């Protein structure tokens, strides 16, 4: 009896040496930040083993301001940012690697555009030069983020040395309440097990709540596996998965599809397969969540209050809470719904997909933004779809700014960032100190909650705005 993880891992073993396995890598995704990998390739005169298994995306450094995008890369005022984008262009051209970059209708964040292309398929091993590569595991594969040296190894050999992680099953049962989303579920999981809770584990998300989720929702859940320390996040493939994949650029067609589908159906964990660790979550108990601190486990239901370090019994946490509150400029015991925000960011590889924009638009319809609010689609494909549905017009009518696809204010290295002290309601994945710009303060939440904060100018329970349809 094997788990989904076991099946994928065992299918990719090239060799074994002591405690490590040489795993075959089916797909490797890179971005502008992969310059260190190409630097090493050049320095050592190494070639790329299989350029057709490497895929490059311009996302981290690409500007999302529509006017700048229209003017082209040569017009970028910051020479360092321009250099990163041009380096990726030169390096991918040199080695014959496919690039989905500036001006390409398939451009987008690697974890949004990659699945749209059909690159993320059940049963494969996929690595990415970005920690949120765990996103792709939503399709029933083993996907994980790697550093520059490991990326160099992968592009040079198409393999990677790994110690076999333990398996952790997180079972989520029940129906999501009104206003509760996949983002709230994963924030609740991280709050429960902690940012180190899954270190050394490959997570499988299971249960009726997960089974009912769309692929976009599943990707949101798997995306933040790394915020619990997990090596990977996986979900068993099912008809929802196959429906998403059918007909995409890189998915098999015709007879090859039937062969692939028959194999994919063998991948889910066998009933009774043993996991190293089990965690359970009751979906019905989850309320819309917001983070109040400086890491993703410091999250509470929006109905709560800022924690009081003095009331924390664990001495270590007491110190951590006090530091977090000092950085965040928050007073203990203040209702979370009273926290005023300066800006709102809706987007990222966590929440930049069409379902996310639909949820944000449903709230945007109810009023008008009272603070600067950006909506940044995760890919050009998402952007086109949103525009076809008229979501862009809903956003602009509500005073939200509609931008071009990219990582934008999540990575905050492309010109989009907070100024010191600014407070942002954000649908991204990390509220670390300075993550959205030096001195910036981030509250993580779902797209609907972020849109609600835009209308009110403070954190607010989206359920209070009504709008149920």
């Amino acid at each position, binding site marked *: 009896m094997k788990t989904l993880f076991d099946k994928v891992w065992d299918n990719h073993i*090239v*060799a074994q*040496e*002591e*405690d*490590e396995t*040489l795993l*075959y890598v089916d797909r490797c995704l890179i971005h502008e*930040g992969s*310059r*260190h990998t190409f*630097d090493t390739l050049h320095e050592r005169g190494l070639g790329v083993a*299989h350029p*057709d298994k490497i895929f490059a995306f311009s996302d981290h450094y690409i500007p999302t301001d529509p006017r700048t995008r229209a003017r082209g890369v040569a017009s970028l005022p910051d020479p360092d*940012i321009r*250099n990163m984008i041009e380096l990726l262009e030169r390096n991918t051209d040199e080695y014959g690697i496919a690039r989905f970059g500036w001006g390409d209708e398939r451009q987008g964040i690697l974890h949004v555009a990659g699945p749209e292309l059909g690159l993320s*398929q059940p*049963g*494969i091993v996929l690595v990415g*030069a*970005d*920690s949120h590569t765990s996103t792709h595991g939503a399709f029933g594969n083993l996907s994980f*983020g*790697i*550093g*520059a*040296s*490991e990326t*160099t*190894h992968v592009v040079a*050999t198409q*393999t990677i040395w790994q*110690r076999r992680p333990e398996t952790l099953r997180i079972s989520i049962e029940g129906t999501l309440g009104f206003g509760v989303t996949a983002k709230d579920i994963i924030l609740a999981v991280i709050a429960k097990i902690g*940012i*180190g809770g899954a*270190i*050394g584990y490959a997570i499988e998300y299971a249960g009726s709540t997960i089974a009912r989720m769309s692929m976009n929702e599943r990707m949101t859940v798997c995306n933040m596996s*790394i*915020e619990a320390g997990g*090596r990977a996040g996986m979900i068993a493939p099912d008809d929802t998965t196959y429906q998403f994949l059918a007909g995409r650029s890189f998915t*098999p067609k015709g007879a*090859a*599809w039937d*062969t*692939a589908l028959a*194999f994919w159906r063998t991948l889910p964990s066998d009933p009774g397969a043993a996991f190293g660790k089990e965690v359970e979550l009751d979906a019905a108990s989850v309320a819309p969540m917001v983070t109040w601190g*400086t*890491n993703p486990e410091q999250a509470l239901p929006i109905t709560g209050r800022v924690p009081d370090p003095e009331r924390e019994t664990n001495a*270590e946490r007491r110190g*951590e809470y006090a530091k977090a509150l000092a950085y965040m400029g928050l007073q203990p015991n203040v209702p979370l719904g009273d926290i005023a925000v300066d800006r709102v960011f809706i987007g990222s590889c966590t929440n930049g997909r069409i379902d996310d924009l639909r949820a944000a638009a449903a709230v945007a319809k109810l009023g008008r933004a009272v603070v600067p609010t950006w909506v940044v689609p995760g890919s050009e494909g998402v952007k086109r779809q949103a525009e076809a549905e008229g979501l862009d017009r809903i956003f602009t009518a509500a005073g939200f700014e509609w931008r071009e696809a990219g990582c934008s204010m999540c*990575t*905050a*290295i492309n010109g989009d960032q907070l100024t*010191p002290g600014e407070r942002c309601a954000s649908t991204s994945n*990390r509220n*670390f*100190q*300075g*993550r959205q710009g*030096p001195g910036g303060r981030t509250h993580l939440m779902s797209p609907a909650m972020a849109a609600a904060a835009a209308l009110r100018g403070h954190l607010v329970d989206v359920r209070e705005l009504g709008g149920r349809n």
Partner: protein
Amino acid sequence: MEPFTTLSGIAVPLDEANLDTNQLCPTRFNKVAKGPRFRDILLHDRRFNADGSEKPDYILNQEPYRQAVIAVAGRNFGVGSSRETAVFGLMGFGIRSVIAPNFGDIFYNNSLKNGLLPVRLPGPTVELLIRQLLARPGATMTVDLPEQVVTGPDGARHRFEVAPLSRKRLLRGLDEIAHTQEYAGAIRRFEQSQASAFPWLQPAS
């Protein structure tokens, strides 16, 4: 890769949990090519004011910690982003080993690929070491990889575990890519068998 055998020298206590890689290397420095600039990039926004001046109260800006070769830190060290620049920063500063109760997985692997040894010791042991280091600024410690022992400022020996193949690579300074190329035959055989069993995975011609 530079081999790692035994390291002795000044140890700096970073008395803080959850030092994520955004702290170790703020994102805007990820575009910097590997090199000497990383000495000042490590924990940049903790060490420097917005105008570039040093924050004198941050421990790494104080003597004798500028000469530290070992860091002892709280749990969840290096969680978050996969950026290897976090390791470049530590190495650039001169730190070759970090001791903590646990590490982010990607940071842990990135360290091993660069000749920086991450040592996991139990939480109470790490707390004890931090207390000892805070009490005796400039105290030295030793990290002995062949023996798999950390020697604290008080001379007490703490055994640690390290994965066998990683240990071998570090001790010999093995080049991982050259090592993997010895498996070229096995990789070729895998590719052939995958092409027949999973033909849909092959890139379209």
